[in-house]
């Protein structure tokens, strides 16, 4: 598993011409584990959307190296999933095989074995035929991590993966993240719990619309940096002047 480096060159991401992430430059090294930290509205989810490619930059460039589409596995915030839909755990996890089988290919006996392994890997064996609507929040997150594992992607993006999840589940899922790192996959996670960040993510990007600090976690999360991040202006200003500082 060799993930190429991902480079941001003066990237601005946003909506309706207003930046949510302003002038970000830097590199995510192959096989690194990067935590993205910052206040609400700091542009953390927007950054992941830009990374995965569903949101085009307003300015600058994101260089994904030789990564093909589908080689970035992305776990959005739980809200995008319709939990009332009649689909069971096995089928939901099996969608992680999409890159291999596409819209028409069969899952096959090998694929089914892989799905069962992935489900076992997150401790959900026995839940295969349970509709997703009957799962607890933690169980659903385990299922979604099983799908991520099945995607077998060199780059894995997690958007607030541990929000409202109990400590046991967080520990199990962090073990899985550690295993992905052992397989030289790049992991980028939006997180709020600084203890988790310091414990499991060697590198941190502190974001408050613009990058406040980016580097080794202990450095990036120094108290004065955190204070600076808290001073972020939250509102879009419709009368703000047009920004000309892009390096063309």
């Amino acid at each position, binding site marked *: 598993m060799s993930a190429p480096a991902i480079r941001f060159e003066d990237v601005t991401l946003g909506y309706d011409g207003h930046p949510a992430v302003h002038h970000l430059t830097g590199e995510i090294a192959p096989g690194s584990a990067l935590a993205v930290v910052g206040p609400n509205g700091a542009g953390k989810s927007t950054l992941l959307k830009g990374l*995965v490619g*569903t949101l085009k930059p307003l300015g600058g460039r994101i260089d994904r190296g030789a990564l093909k*589409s*589908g080689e*970035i*596995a*992305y776990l*959005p915030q739980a809200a*995008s*999933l*319709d939990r009332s*839909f*009649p*689909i*069971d755990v096995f089928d*939901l996890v099996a*969608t992680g095989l*999409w*890159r291999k089988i*596409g*819209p*028409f290919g069969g899952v096959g006996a090998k694929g089914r074995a892989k799905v069962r392994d992935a489900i076992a890997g997150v401790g959900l064996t026995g839940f295969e035929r349970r*509709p*997703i609507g009957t799962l607890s929040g933690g169980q659903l997150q385990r299922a979604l991590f099983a*799908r991520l594992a099945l*995607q077998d992607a060199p780059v894995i993006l997690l958007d607030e993966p541990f929000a409202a999840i109990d400590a046991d589940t967080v520990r199990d899922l962090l073990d899985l993240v550690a295993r992905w790192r052992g397989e030289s996959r790049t992991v980028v996670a939006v997180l709020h719990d600084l203890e988790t960040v310091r414990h499991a993510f060697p590198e941190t990007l502190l974001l408050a619309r613009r990058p406040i600090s980016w580097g080794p976690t202990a450095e990036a999360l120094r108290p004065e940096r955190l204070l600076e991040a808290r001073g972020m202006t939250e509102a879009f200003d419709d009368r703000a002047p047009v920004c000309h500082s892009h390096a063309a």
Partner: protein
Amino acid sequence: MSIYDALIGPFVEFDFMRRALIGSLALSLGAGPVGVFLMLRRMSLAGDAMAHAILPGAAAGFLVAGLSLPAMTLGGLVAGVSVALLAGLVTRTTALKEDAALAAFYLLSLALGVTMVSLRGSNVDLLHVLFGSVLALDDDALLLLAGVATVTLVTLALVYRPLVLECVDPGFLASVSRAGGPAHLIFLGLVVLNLVAGFQALGTLLAVGVMMLPAATAPFWTQRLAPMFGVAVAAGALASVAGLLGSYHAGVPTGPAIILAAGVVYLLSMAFGPAGGLVWRLVPARRHRAA
């Protein structure tokens, strides 16, 4: 009256009853699964909006060629697909949500259609377009209904995986594939196709009934996706037979009779269905499992 006279006789005796039976069964076969997807996408009322949108197209066909099946079908298809595409375009390019855009375009479309029909035809013609004529299906109409059912089932099978994923987790689908958008458009095309086929038999306003009522019935029988399609088709078929027989014996109009029968099936399922029917809530649970 013997059971034979009540249930089988009318179909043996009259050719038009047999044709009506075949036509409405074919319609149930295609429209049921489409309705299940509409319901799961929380677009139950979008089906209704599309049915209204088809009217001006059918009316244009009617103005040009009178009561001609090909002209009215083509007109309905063009109008339905245009409204679906326009609503999709507005949703993607402006801040307006898809339901609001659909409502706007179908109201425009409906007003246009009623105006066009009243310009030329009498009110009897308008009633014909609005409520269909399931007892007057000719060979062409039957072929259209059967063809639409075939195309619908084959196409649904082809776009099944992206369509299901687009319903359950659109964010994930967008991250692995661009198939979501095309699958959604193809699906809307199928909705229009089935409504156009349905208005041959039941009229524009009732066509949506044979699509949505069986779909709304299905979740009271099963919580699993694949069996839901079967239940919806079975409910539609049952309503077709019951509606035709009821209309034959009681002398009421056939189209509304079929929809009323589908409504009765829905209400009974809501009351007694094994998966969340209302009566099971009235019975207090005496026992529960230890784990």
